[in-house]
């Protein structure tokens, strides 16, 4: 039920300031997702979508930092 999927924002429509929407690409699927709860998203950003709403913006820097740390993690004897 809490399934949420990351997708890339293709376009943003904030013509109704109280109901911001984005067209979001998930793999080969494109859907309109509410971005009402996220102020700082731009085209090209990744968001995490759940039942038609964006829960959070994927923190790209943080993701890179964690993955790099994991890749560089030394093996323990």
């Amino acid at each position, binding site marked *: *039920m*809490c399934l949420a999927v990351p997708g*890339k924002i293709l376009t943003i429509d904030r013509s109704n300031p109280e109901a911001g929407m984005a067209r979001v690409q998930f793999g080969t699927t494109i859907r309109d997702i509410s971005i009402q709860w996220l102020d700082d998203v731009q085209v090209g950003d990744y968001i995490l979508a759940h039942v038609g709403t964006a829960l959070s913006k994927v923190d790209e820097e943080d993701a890179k930092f*964690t993955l790099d740390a994991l890749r560089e993690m030394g093996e*323990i004897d």
Partner: protein
Amino acid sequence: MKYIDEYRDRELVEKLVRKITSGVSREWNIMEVCGGQTHAIMKYNLLQLLPPEIKLIHGPGCPVCVTPLEQIDQAIHLARMDRIILTSFGDMLRVPGSESDLLSEKAAGGDIRMVYSPLDTLELATSNPGKEVVFFAVGFETTAPAVAMAVREAQKRNLKNFSVLVSHVLVPPALDALLSAPDHQIDAFLAAGHVCAIMGTEEYEALTEKYTLPIVVTGFEPVDILLGISQAIEMLEAQKHGVYNAYSRIVKPLGNLKAKQLLEEVFVPGERTWRGMGAIPNSGLKLRDPYRSYDAARRFRLKNKKPYEAGSCMAGLILTGKKRPAECFSFGTTCTPESPLGAPMVSSEGACAAYYRYYRTSTGQP
């Protein structure tokens, strides 16, 4: 897909498994709270990769599984009424009530529709002015804000033929209930990442202090889950407790403030019965006064009839992690996803369904 494929990387999985294996000195029981995590653990066969000292206990994080029978019966009652369109998420339709399920009601002529988003229900209400449209709202803190959004939007549009049968549940009170049971076996929690994406980590700070056990906020891909386990083991072995966020690309300490605000505006916490677990104080959500006219239970004067629970289903023990699906004598014999006795065999997040799908042997063992 970006932000998915990297977290299924074999090399990273193997590396994390080696780290966990070398860091564990005794047996530990870790409960993954969310059913989505249970399914990922089965799908990627993580139980077999992990050292035998680590026991994963599957938690109650399957909203469909914990929806009380009374409420499923109420939804069925609604679906049998004239001029009602009942909508819900697909998972909810197959869960058995006392004497039927919503999918059978649909086959018998009930107007029941599966929706992707609660917001879709608003459109349905607008285009069917002669009918009452009821959304059967299940889900944790992850899902409830979208329902709050739909209710507020309905009020804004003055939509009179829309209402919600509210069956939302909150995670922290359930974890508190699990830990306050004297016979619990839980050494650490992997907290549900998407619930925390909305709520943040604050509520878990209180739990970790009260029960002095590690709580690690964890995502849903194999690398995420192993990172969560690795962190939990590190804390357990060092006899430390606290909240650690192993899903920081998604979860921020304060969560999503706007969604939380909306949740607070529309809903108020109240006592809630969890199927198989009983009543838990403040573990459910009710509509606040300004939105009570959207409460389907009130609008249609729904009563709580005494439900009939199939005696051979041990869902309560499964949901609290006290038994594994394979320990149930009905598992895979009289209880299958095609003909389920209880909700954990139905839902795409139920532990029984996960065991059946990925370990389809008579014993349910890998």
